[in-house]
């Protein structure tokens, strides 16, 4: 009966969730203190917003790959959608909303919505496919988005947004500004992104993903990953919950893209290519499929690591060292002996806190 009375006790997943919030908040506070004491180099300071973006990207991709269990290779495509729609929104709102944080927030909402719409458009036909096929189509999607944006010319004047596929076709009034200039991307963007905004976006992402997973819908998504046939047999609608996970993931990637785009004065579409998708996938796989905390740590460490290696005498070998570290981490986390050793250590640490329930006690078999 202890389980019935223990209803108010926090479940394991919510404890894990709080640890993740704590981790992010602690990292933010430590960074703020260090910045206040001038102990952080400019290189690292300029990395803070991208780190937040990649953390959000990794956590949101983990929702598709680790939690839903579908391989997506086009996550950067949604980031791209979010980046450019966010830049357009921020420029359009320049004179309407003067408060910068609010304008940033509204732009991120626009980015998330556009990313989400992209998720619906790509998800509807694609989520009927399985495994490798889904991976190939999402890969193609990412490339298509990149190439489409590279030929787009978007400008803004009093009459509203103008869209063209050739520069000479983009006719604006005298006060008009062209926002996206084809292969040159978006230039002259007002930098709105701040570390605080990135920190808040990470928290919002954690809130959305963790609460979603712990809800009725999240259980349905997890059940699809574990056993699709069984999930259908208990009345779970496959398409609905696949879409839910995929679109949520795309919307969060869109918001991350907006933050990323508004962190630089110019952004080109080729930044969000296949390499970026794979990079984010590497964070997710290294951090552990389905592990939110793993994604956060992997994304943060692996974004900063190449920059750290840039300094000092090892800078010529930095990509080599980066690659070796990736391989080593993969080997260590997949080695049964080392894993067993890690498990034993963590079990010993836990034994002091929890009484071990006897598995054989309730089940005769």
């Amino acid at each position: 009966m202890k389980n019935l009375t223990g209803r108010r006790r926090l479940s394991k997943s919510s404890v894990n969730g709080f640890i993740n919030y704590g981790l992010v908040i602690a990292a933010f506070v430590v960074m703020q203190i260090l910045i206040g004491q001038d102990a952080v180099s400019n290189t690292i300071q300029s990395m803070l917003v991208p780190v937040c973006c990649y953390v959000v990207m990794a956590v949101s991709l983990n929702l598709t790959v680790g939690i839903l269990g579908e391989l997506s290779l086009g996550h950067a495509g949604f980031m791209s959608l979010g980046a450019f729609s966010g830049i357009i929104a921020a420029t359009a709102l320049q004179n309407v909303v003067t408060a910068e944080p609010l304008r940033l927030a509204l732009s991120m909402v626009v980015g998330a919505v556009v990313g989400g719409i992209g998720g619906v458009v790509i998800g509807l036909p694609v989520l009927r496919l399985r495994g490798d096929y889904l991976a190939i189509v999402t890969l193609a999607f990412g490339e298509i988005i990149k190439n489409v944006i590279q030929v787009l010319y978007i400008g803004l004047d009093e009459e509203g947004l103008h869209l063209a596929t050739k520069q000479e076709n983009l006719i604006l009034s005298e006060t008009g500004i062209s926002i996206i200039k084809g292969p040159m991307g978006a230039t002259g963007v007002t930098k709105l992104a701040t570390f605080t905004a990135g920190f808040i976006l990470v928290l919002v992402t954690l809130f959305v993903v963790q609460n979603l997973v712990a809800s009725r819908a999240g259980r349905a998504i997890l059940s699809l990953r574990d056993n699709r046939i069984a999930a259908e047999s208990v009345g779970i609608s496959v398409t609905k919950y696949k879409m839910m996970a995929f679109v949520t993931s795309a919307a969060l990637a869109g918001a991350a893209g907006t933050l990323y785009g508004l962190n630089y004065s110019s952004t080109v579409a080729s930044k969000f290519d296949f390499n970026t998708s794979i990079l984010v996938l590497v964070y997710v796989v290294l951090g552990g499929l389905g592990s939110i905390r793993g994604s956060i740590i992997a994304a943060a460490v692996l974004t900063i690591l190449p920059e750290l290696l840039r300094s000092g005498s090892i800078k010529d070998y930095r990509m080599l060292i980066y690659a070796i570290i990736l391989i080593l981490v993969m080997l260590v986390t997949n080695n049964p002996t080392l894993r067993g050793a890690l498990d034993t250590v963590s079990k010993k640490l836990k034994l002091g806190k929890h009484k071990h329930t006897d598995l054989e006690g309730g089940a005769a078999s």
Partner: protein
Amino acid sequence: MNGAYPKPKLVPVPSTNIIPDRDADKSPILECRNLGIDFGGLSAVSDFNMAIGRTEIAGLIGPNGAGKTTVFNLLTKVYQPTRGTIMLDGKDTHSMTTAQVNRAGIARTFQNIRLFSNLSVEDNVKVGLHNQMRYGMFSGILRMPGYWKEERVARERALELLSIFDMQDLASHQAGSLPYGAQRRLEIVRALATNPSLLLLDEPAAGMNPSETAELMNNIRKIRDTFHIAIMLIEHDMNLVMGVCEGICVLNFGKVIAKGTPEEIQANPAVIEAYLGKQKEA
């Protein structure tokens, strides 16, 4: 879809079906008419006719490869039937998907266990309760009052269902780490959680010893009596089938070769031949 599919019309139950007396005055929960499926040129099941009473425990037996699991897959729409009609509680399931059939009232277990092995025992049952919960994605993310209320009810209900098999103490364990017998029982609990009117059990006693099988027999009866539902089971353990089933249908090479009460089936020469082969004429 299949053009040859006949338009269904509910007509009185054919007299060839065996339904216990207590259910005789009510319409059957499940009725199959001339059900059949072809894989390529091979007819896996053909002319399958069967009706199951509201609170009947029915058995589906037959030698290996007779098409028993295929019948379950047809009933749950894992396969689309090539011919025939399935009427569930008077409704045709023709256009339904697997998930919709479950919502309409058929729950099943699998021959090779299919649990959500990375989820906890409790969450496995809660996935079964999914369609009895109402709150949406956003009240889940924002943790609205509906979330807390329904999750509390679901937890209580899950533990209550687990207590049928005395498994409530295992609620927090990972489903995949349970011993084999407990996994089989959990699958039944998960199926029951979907609030079915017909429960399909595919070899529930597989891998169990005689005392566990005896316990399972009691539990099958207990489930029928507590939930007032019909149960249909595939099983090779004849002690269980003969001990618990009220009506038995024997399948061989995709065709029904006999139907009747356990006593009738045991005396049926066609059944004996299907299992043991033809006796040499001396």
